[in-house]
């Protein structure tokens, strides 16, 4: 079983890997797909691309309204503590970075063209990584994308979920 000491060590090893990745990397993001004009507070165009690519694989749903998911993720992040937002900034910057994507996420193709199987392999690797830090990166993506989609009433039909009719009409 994992002891406290080991845990701290894996956590630190994780940070070292991240630091190294950040240092090695020339801060060159992947080319961006032009298009979406959305009002976003936190997410940058490169983050948007990452979410658009990952969300259908994370949720296992084809034909998602991706703009709405991106909006939802952005709105969720703006309500988090500055310290947490900073961590998410680092996570997205790392993933947006070519080196980070290639060597830490193990995704060879740019996010926009990566196949679902390549993306699923990345998620699985981080989900089960021996490094606490990568597992927490996976969990952050999982939480944000799931919150953004299942908090959106557009997702409810597919779940058979409905608010209680006897009261909805009485709410102002």
């Amino acid at each position, binding site marked *: 079983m994992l002891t406290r000491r080991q845990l701290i060590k894996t956590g630190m090893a994780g940070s070292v890997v991240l630091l190294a990745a950040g240092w090695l990397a020339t801060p060159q993001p992947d080319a961006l797909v032009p298009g979406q004009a959305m009002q976003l507070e936190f997410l940058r165009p490169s983050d948007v691309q990452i979410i658009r690519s990952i969300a259908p694989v994370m*949720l*296992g749903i084809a034909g998602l309204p991706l703009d709405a998911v991106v909006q939802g993720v952005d709105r969720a992040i703006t309500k988090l503590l500055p310290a947490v937002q900073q961590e998410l900034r680092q996570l997205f910057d790392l993933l947006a970075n070519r080196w980070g994507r290639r060597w830490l996420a193990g995704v060879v193709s740019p996010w926009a063209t990566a196949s679902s199987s390549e993306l699923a392999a990345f998620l699985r690797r981080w989900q089960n990584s021996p490094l606490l830090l990568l597992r927490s990166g996976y969990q952050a993506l999982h939480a944000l994308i799931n919150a953004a989609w*299942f908090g959106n009433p557009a997702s409810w039909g597919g779940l058979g*979920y409905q608010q209680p009719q006897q009261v909805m009409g009485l709410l102002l």
Partner: protein
Amino acid sequence: MSLPDPVAEGVASGWRVLDGAAQTQDLHLTCDVLIIGTGAGGGMTAEVLASAGLDVLMVEEGALRTSRDFRLLEAKAYPELYQESASRKTADKAINILQGRTVGGSTTVNWTSAFRTPADTLNWWGERYGLHGLNPQAMAPWFDMAEARLGIDDWLADPNPNNSVLERGCQALGLKHGRIRRNVRGCWNLGYCGMGCATNAKQSMLVTTIPAALQHKAGLLSRARVERLLLAADGKSVQGAQGSLLRADDHSSSGYQFHLKARHVVLAAGAIGTPAILLRSGLGGAQLGKRTFLHPVSICGAVMSQRIEAYNGAPQTVYSDHFMHTQPLDGPLGYKLEVPPVHPLLVGVTLSGFGQHSAQLMQQLPQLHVMLALLRDGFHPDSQGGQVRLRSDGTPELDYPLTDVLWDGVRRSWLTMAEVQFAAGARQVQVIHEQAPLLNSWREAKEMIGQLPLKPLLARLVSAHVMGGAAMSSQPDQGVVDEYGRHWSLRNLSVIDGSVFPTSIGANPQLSVYAFALRAAHQLREALKA
């Protein structure tokens, strides 16, 4: 027709309420008693003191939101009513912590289960911590008083199907179980308690003690984050508190400050919040922030063949203490079995796995049954809880190391939950662990659960019960406050909230907080009137 909103009516009738976000300059106010935080502890204290004629001022970090704001929408409720949008986590991120952050605190969003502090917990505090005055007999009148005030009573309606599964499973296996009492009056049985009660049936602080205090001329300042206490020159007492007013987004500081002066200050900012204020004030003390407990919760999902609709109906009405009060308190961790309300956002975030697998589970939401095991932390010698500390920006963080004794409890509780669910007729069961598949039989589950690696962020653990961190003690060097919440070294400072408990409660804590708050507040009222 629309639903009545007594709090909004009270505000319109001229209650003394100030919204931090509406202020256009720094605020300076003076009162007899300043109460920081308006949850279970703060609300109870406010009513007791204000009704005795004391000039009470409540200050709350969250906004004043009332039933007309409660729209049964998770995406609205979590950012507006919870600490860190319901995503507060322990330092290694292994446990997700739910705490309220609005007027009424966690009571505005809690699930209404009401248990008295178990007798074995109270007796333990007497034996181990010298808190002999807190025995079950001495506490009984305070529980009675809290129950009468908040309509805590047997819930007579049938359990919803989600709770019935727990009951059926326990019956089939011969496990002790019972029905849960609730703090409601005229409940509509909707199932949305966690998003704020739209019908004002839940007897939270928002609709009971806080309106009563305001009726007695107390003041309320919301969207105001206390940063630190103001110490007197002699270092032996406090003069009040100061902090930042927040904007209408509830989160960022507006740039204006507030300074509140008081004869007596009550810290009621909840476990995590209260130790954080003391730490930011430079009031350390060897025990402060330590031994913070969570009742870490492990989770097991099941697909039933019939519709469960676990999002409808009173969320918690059945429990089992079969694994709680039948074995030594300080032995392997005991656990209480309950079920949670199941709504899409929270389930989506909580279920393990991704892709096709979770999509298929989510599509079966109406058939989904979810069970919880609340682990009783703080009694076993290797269960010391966590420690509240400050990040560099002054925000609090709870470091809660997951020890072997806890993981052992998690694994045993998964086994129990899977067995109960299969016994109740589950088609498939999945413990909430990243590497756990859907299992088709109890035999398969037993085998599989035995092998799951126990690591943070593989098993998903949650908590809605934060306790401790500013514990009561019989000796000054062994805790932060005495049995009435009086700070051991600052003579006009009290702590009256969930942070005073020396261990976890071993039952959902709201009624414990209420009863101890009433006891402390009555003592304080006598002292202040003298």
